[in-house]
């Protein structure tokens, strides 16, 4: 090949490699789940955040994985993500709608509610017809009653909240079949629990990871693979904006 032809081929090949590298970097490696931003919805030093757990994702390429959803504060739709942002030095009032069944904890120590106001969580049970009164619970025996479906734990702040499950028989047909579930606390279709708790974010900002401690990654060794190890399902990030 002549000199100009060689140089041209080189330049084209170089640009192709660079383009390919950028594509891989942005598409695969740099991808992160969307962040639900609650910072502008805070008032009087408090902010309300709503999450949901479901038995099956259905909306992604891993339809059988369990997952969390977070409610978008403006559209009120539940988005398939686990990343959210709250302001610093604020009391965060968390509501979690639990539509999943139950799994015993591998380490029962995570059955104790910790790091939240009063060290209790307030639980309401919806059995398909009526919503029960709210009761405060501080410790769960996940083996005895199979009473825990997932946990919401922020180890960096010492927060640990087991999400109560609805322990009834013949659950399978009653688990929410589509994801996200309607999210209406008095939804007529599926039994679920409504768990409420509060904690305060620190004064300095930062990024805090949160995760579930229930071995709910079915089909994986020790139940800790799959959704437990993928962002957007059973683990996420809370950004505290100072």
């Amino acid at each position, binding site marked *: 090949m002549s000199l100009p032809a060689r140089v041209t081929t*080189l330049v084209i090949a170089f640009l192709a490699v660079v383009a390919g590298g950028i594509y891989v970097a942005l598409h695969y*490696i740099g991808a*992160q789940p969307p962040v639900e931003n609650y910072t502008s919805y805070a008032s009087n030093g408090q902010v309300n955040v709503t999450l949901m757990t479901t038995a099956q994702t259905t909306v992604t390429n891993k339809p*059988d994985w369990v997952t969390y959803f977070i409610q978008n504060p403006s559209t009120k739709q539940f988005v398939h993500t686990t990343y959210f942002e709250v302001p610093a030095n604020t009391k965060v009032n968390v509501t979690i709608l639990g539509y999943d069944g139950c799994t015993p904890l591998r380490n029962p120590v995570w059955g104790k509610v910790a790091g939240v106001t009063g060290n209790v969580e307030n639980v309401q049970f919806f059995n398909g017809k009526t919503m029960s009164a709210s009761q405060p619970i501080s410790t769960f025996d996940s083996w005895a009653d199979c009473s825990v479906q997932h946990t919401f734990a922020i180890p960096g702040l010492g927060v640990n909240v087991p999400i109560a499950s609805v322990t009834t028989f013949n659950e399978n047909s009653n688990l929410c079949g589509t994801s996200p579930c309607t999210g209406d606390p008095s939804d007529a279709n599926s039994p679920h629990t409504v768990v409420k708790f509060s904690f305060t974010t620190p004064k300095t900002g930062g*990024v805090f990871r949160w995760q579930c401690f229930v071995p709910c990654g079915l089909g994986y060794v020790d139940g800790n693979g799959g959704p437990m*190890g*993928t*962002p957007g399902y059973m683990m996420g990030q809370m950004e505290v904006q100072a």
Partner: protein
Amino acid sequence: MAIETQPESAQAPGGREPGGTPKERAWWLRPAWHTALIGAIVGYAFGHFLGNWIGSGYQQVGTSDDNDMAIVLGYGFLVLGWLIGLGVFNDLIRQMVGRPINGNGHTGNGLAKYFRYSLDHKVVGIQYLVGMLIYFFTGGLFAMAIRTELLSPSYHVLSPTAYLEVVGEHGTMMMMMMTSVVVGPLGNYLVPLMIGSKRVAFPRIEALSFWLTPCAFVILLSSIPLGGFPTGWTGYAPLSIQAGEGMDAYAFAFGLMGVSVILAGFNLICTIICYRAPGMRWGRLPMFVWSMLTTSFLFVLAAPVLVGGMYMIITDRTAQTAFFINQLGGSSYLYEDLFWFFGHPEVYILALPGFGIVSEIIPVFTRKPLFGYKVAAAGMFGVAILSFFVWQHHLFDSGMDPDMRPLFMLTTELISIPTGFIYLVAMGTFWKAKLRLRPPMLFAMGMYVNFLFGGISGVFLSDVPADTTAHGSFFVMAHFHYTIMGGLIFAFFGGLYYWLPKIMGVTLNERLGKIHFWTMFITFNSTFMPLFAVGMLGQPRRVFEYARNLETLNDWVSISAFCLGVSMLIFIFNFVMSTVVWRKRAPQNPWQSRGLEWQVSSPPPPDNFTHIPVVLAGPYEYGDPNALPVADLNPPAGVIGGALAGAGATTSAGTEA
């Protein structure tokens, strides 16, 4: 000793029927890279479908949405399809059905032959060279991503999964593919030239060992769209059993590379032992060939254990065996032992060729014989043998066998003695020498300086109490980057600057070479020296959150790493422009070396030597006016026959595997 005495044509691999003419088809019909690709795609599709058919009914597959069986079978048939498309089995099948073998292994002229299953060791060497450079720079890109994430202890550019993905890809790409970074290109290309042979012992096996590497590369990269693997390059069970689909790519690719290096090593051992020219006594063997010999022994003895370990990971993940699951009767310790029994010789596989290259370079650029030839060879053998007796030093904190720790501490400390021989040889060679500081020499000296820090930090790590703090921290990272990158890669670049005129017939631009060396040396030390401190101050490996007081050091390291990447760009620019655009013709022996490979043209003729040379003296006899030339390239008629008659050996018939 098998010495070729028959006419040239019969020496050509594959042989030819007397009077037969090879059939030449159009280029797109002949098996090459493109047919291999088609075969690979068809193979993967078939394997994946097969795996889905077998596995989709299993509950584990249904609940986890991960069908590892489909992926693994897909990869297996991908490799098979790739090899079939490449034409690897064509000659075997022809022999089995009694048809004449087609062609002589010299598969065409010009650039086309580099895309085919060529049996010429020089073509395979260049294929390996381009491949290894691509793999190295891809791994380097991942390293840039790692250092980008580590710029801040709290702000995360990458998600945690992506970070571990990148860490694993970087480590595995380097440790897996770089196993053959010297043996592949330089070993395969130069060993026959250095020992006076026209070919290697098993050209088909050598070519096969190369063609498995692009498969391994692509399979490893395919892990990224599958979610990556979270274990780093060590693949510890049970995390590797727990991981998602990307883990299969790691296990399969690593096993495949293991097979590739076993083949390459086997071929080189037989070539070096059996194909030396008359007069090439063991005492005259170039030091580079000694390093290839010892490295090849390590390949053949250590890599099978790796393949076994990877195989067990795959069966644990697909066939529900429990080799590594403690609760079901297996043991996570088993994996650690299997992996490190391979893993430790692996790092000496990476170090020994570096020693060989620099020992080959320094006599040429000091114009002195190599000081202590026997000491150097003994050092290489000592390192190779001892490397099998030290692997527990990776497991000092694991809880295994505490009573064995003093023993392994001793053996690990002992291995620094033969490693030190290399320095004795270098320092003796430098004594009152006439140093020529050209790029190959600069890289060789850089290698010695870097390996010194790497080796000394290794002595720190071999001490069990010191290892308690240093294990699993950035101190270990700095240690192995100094030995592997500072040692092997610097030596590799030195060898490249030294031998590229011979291999491609063009010289690399010397000024750019010196700029490349100085930028690389300075940025390399600036990147990795602070990491010793970072590790000692408590930062573990593979983490993306670290203590705030370490942020300045990490930022310094990251910026230096980016500059190190820029220095690599200088090399790429130099390499590409010199070989493609400038193409400055190289003289036959630009460095005035006595090596046998330099006595033929640059590049060498297709059969290396017109006649098998008779070796008269060693390659390091500089400064001795009475020294004979290294070889007689036109031995008088009857010399070789006379040698054979004296030894009573029969002539070989030129068959090959």
